[in-house]
């Protein structure tokens, strides 16, 4: 059990040491996951909104598939991207395998269903009056839909923080398509796996703590951005 205490200590020491390799690994983690998050957000929020609002045959099915893909196993996502980007795969010429780009692609594949599915649910819980009020004030369809998204912010921010958590913590896919190459595609999560495999539990915990601190900071950033646009932060009062 003292391994945990030692892990916390090791984490602090690791941070203080400013180990250049660790810094590089951390920055790569950030770069990969944030890029994937932004991409998943830019694709997922509109897609989710579209699916929530547009009536067409097959809509239900697509929604259910998206919900299901929220449970896409990272290894499977990794395997699929691997096969596509492999030398023998259709996009083999791009030579993306074992690069950060491949990791980003795999993570977008994982993050997109999360953002789209959760955004769809958030938008679906809105009422008709939002749209009506917007268009009657002269909003274009796009403006009105943006207003619906704005009113759904609670759920959409939840979608983003959830996806952020998933991506920054994810290892199966980045391991497979990134390859955990030291100095090139090694990120925090793959480092943790490597350290546990080597039996360095406290170091693994230490890196894990760094990762959680990072996740915490990104989360605060997202919430800060939210608060800057939405000052009202009231919740139900239980009297």
């Amino acid at each position, binding site marked *: 059990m003292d391994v945990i205490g030692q892990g916390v200590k090791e984490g602090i020491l690791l941070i203080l040491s400013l180990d250049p390799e660790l810094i590089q690994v951390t920055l790569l983690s950030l770069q990969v996951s944030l890029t994937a998050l932004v991409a998943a957000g830019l694709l997922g929020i509109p897609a989710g909104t579209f699916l929530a609002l547009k009536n067409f045959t097959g809509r239900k099915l697509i929604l259910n598939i998206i919900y299901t893909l929220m449970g896409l196993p990272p290894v499977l996502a990794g395997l699929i991207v691997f096969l596509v980007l*492999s*030398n023998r795969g259709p996009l083999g010429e791009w030579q993306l*395998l*074992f690069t950060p780009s491949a990791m980003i692609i795999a993570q977008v594949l994982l993050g997109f269903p999360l953002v789209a599915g959760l955004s769809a649910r958030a938008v679906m819980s809105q009422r008709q009056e939002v749209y009506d009020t917007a268009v009657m004030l002269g909003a274009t369809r796009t403006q009105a839909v943006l207003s619906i998204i704005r009113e759904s912010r609670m759920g959409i921010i939840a979608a983003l923080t959830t996806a952020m958590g998933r991506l920054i913590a994810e290892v199966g896919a980045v*391991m*497979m398509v990134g*390859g*955990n*190459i*030291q*100095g*090139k595609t*090694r990120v925090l999560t*793959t*480092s943790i*796996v*490597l350290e*546990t*495999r*080597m*039996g360095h*539990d406290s170091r693994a915990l230490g890196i894990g703590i760094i990762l959680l601190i990072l996740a915490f900071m990104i989360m605060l950033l997202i919430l800060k951005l939210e608060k800057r646009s939405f000052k009202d932060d009231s919740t139900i009062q239980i009297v």
Partner: protein
Amino acid sequence: QKEEAEPQQQAGDSVPTPENPQLKLATTTSTQDSGLLDEIIPDFEAKTGYKAEVIAVGSGAAMEMGESGDADVLLVHSRAAEDEFVAAGFGIDRHDVMYNDFLIIGPAADPAGIKGGDDAVAALTQISDSKSVFLSRGDDSGTHKKELSIWKAAEIEPTGDWYNSVGQGMADTYRMADEMQGYTLIDRATYLANKENYSLESIVEGDELLFNPYGVIAVNPEKYPNINYDGATAFIQWIISDETQALIAEFGKDQYGQSLFIPDAK
């Protein structure tokens, strides 16, 4: 694998019923990924009545599990660390079980020009000199330690863009090496099990430096009361028995035309 489901029936009432039939075996991924354990464990269970629970991790992690008493018996390949483990009192009854060997594999084009050699040190030196892509397990595993010892013998500190430390298991490293068309050090079992899928070829083999002995160790029951020492002993006795050794010698012959492991229990 069919027999495995019904060992009791097969052996009739001659199967002993041990007090604590659950035996945790921590081993390296190579014994599992090669299929060896799937092949021989049913025999163990049928003969002794134990149920072997195989946990496949790296040698390092396996010994870590032994140290914390989370496994009862270890089947690993990391000779120096094994001795240390026994010396520290964590393990007892260490026995040699078998060995297999490593090969250096690489792309058919062979950019380092080392194909057909049997000198591991020279081969790595040339790979380094030609800065050909090389993949290292980089995970403190037995294979990784073996690789480092060869670099040491060659008096080379491998660094640079061509040297990729991937920190993954053997099969994953093989897959990556194939994609990157690089060289890597691999154990014969994993190589043979996967070579159908990939394009890399055997480049260097047969150097004595490349031999890879496996040992079996019981976890010291004095450290933790709930260690299944009886089971560990049964396992050790079974695996070094002549019949099992013969089984090991047979394993792989029908599929690959050669055995993957060479038994060497004394």
